[in-house]
């Protein structure tokens, strides 16, 4: 380790630590009661019949941020697809099948549907109880990979037509954008949640466009995570370099 780096680290770290510590002492005490934006957000959420205020902030009040967030996921998946593509000097090798102990296999195959249903439940109830498109999407996508853990990679590949997932990913982003643009076409504003009735408080269809945007995000996240993990699994399990052409 270079001496210079340690010195820089000591100086920079000490300076930043002092700065942060001084700032922390000036912060309003932990647990304070002044949250103007938060109070407004709760009020706005209730006025639009969305029981989960966080969902309302995410998919209604600050839905434009969520657009950026899902674009980040979309772009990162696209980036990983591009970065982890098969290079010119690589080929695919079929992995050897794995021998999985029977209790593990049974558990994986049993839990898979449970996890899938849980994922869908978490997405569907996003605007009511804790959860939402992102959390549920990740759970649903993870559930599929129980096939890899419980059986082997080949089994996973059979239920995973990547093209379909990539298309779903893109379509979900498009539908989010289309829902946003509908607001502009209707003359209100981008991503305005004024076109649909707000429904009855604390039911699945409440909140206007919130459930729709939530579902779009759920679809996007689930398919994006599947595609993402697929490329890492391909690298770890299947793709091999041509012998003798590695770098020095």
């Amino acid at each position, binding site marked *: 380790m270079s001496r210079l780096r340690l010195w820089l680290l000591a100086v920079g770290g000490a300076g930043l630590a002092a700065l942060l510590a001084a700032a922390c002492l000036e912060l309003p005490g932990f647990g304070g009661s002044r949250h103007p934006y938060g109070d407004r957000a709760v009020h706005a959420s209730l006025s639009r019949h969305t029981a989960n205020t966080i969902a309302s902030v995410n998919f209604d009040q600050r839905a434009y941020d969520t657009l950026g967030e899902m674009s980040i996921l979309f772009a990162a998946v696209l980036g990983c697809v591009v970065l982890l593509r098969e290079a010119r000097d690589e080929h695919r090798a079929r*992995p*050897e*099948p*794995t*021998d*999985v*102990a029977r*209790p*593990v296999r049974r*558990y*994986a195959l049993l*839990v898979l549907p*449970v*996890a899938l249903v*849980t994922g869908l439940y*978490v997405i569907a109830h996003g605007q009511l*109880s*804790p*959860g939402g498109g992102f*959390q549920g999407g990740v*759970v649903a996508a*993870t559930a599929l*990979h*129980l096939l890899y*853990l419980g059986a*082997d*990679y*080949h089994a996973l590949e059979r239920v995973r037509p990547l093209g379909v997932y990539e298309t779903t990913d893109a379509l979900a982003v498009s539908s989010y954008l289309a829902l946003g643009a509908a607001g502009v076409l209707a003359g209100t504003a981008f991503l305005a949640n004024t076109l649909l009735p707000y429904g009855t408080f604390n039911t699945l269809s409440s909140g206007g466009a919130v459930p729709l945007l939530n579902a779009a995000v759920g679809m996007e996240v689930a398919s994006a995570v599947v595609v993402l993990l697929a490329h890492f699994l391909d690298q*770890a*399990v299947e793709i091999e370099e041509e012998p003798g052409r590695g770098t020095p």
Partner: protein
Amino acid sequence: MAVNGWILAATIELGGGGAAALWGVATGPPARRVIAQNMTTSAVCPALLLLAQGYGRPSYVDLALLLALLGPVGTLVFARLLGDDLAGQQPSAWALTWTAAGLGAAVVLALCVAGSPGRATVKLLVIGALLISGNLVASRALAGGFRGVRGG
């Protein structure tokens, strides 16, 4: 919030179990670390249930549900992909595993008794079942659940 037995129990559970798991996961041979990782789920999941009860928010139970589902999956990931490091060690700690399972069962039962019977009870029982079976299966997987993993 007044003094609340549930939260006190959760604090003890998180403090004790968490500290032990942290110690286990950060030190020692790989075998011990994965066992400690597996124990994390068994320590934190009941604590989350206790917290949901202590805060009086049934909707927080979803957290415990997710952890009971995903925690063992995480351990399976390690069991599968750390195969090389664990080769020949066959980590197993059945006494610990059964203790953790018993703890989970005790918490779930206590919560079932405290609440009124209904959908919430069913959910609790499902979580308990997932937690205990996941814990046992993950332990089994660590003690040699995957063979011939070099290729796949």
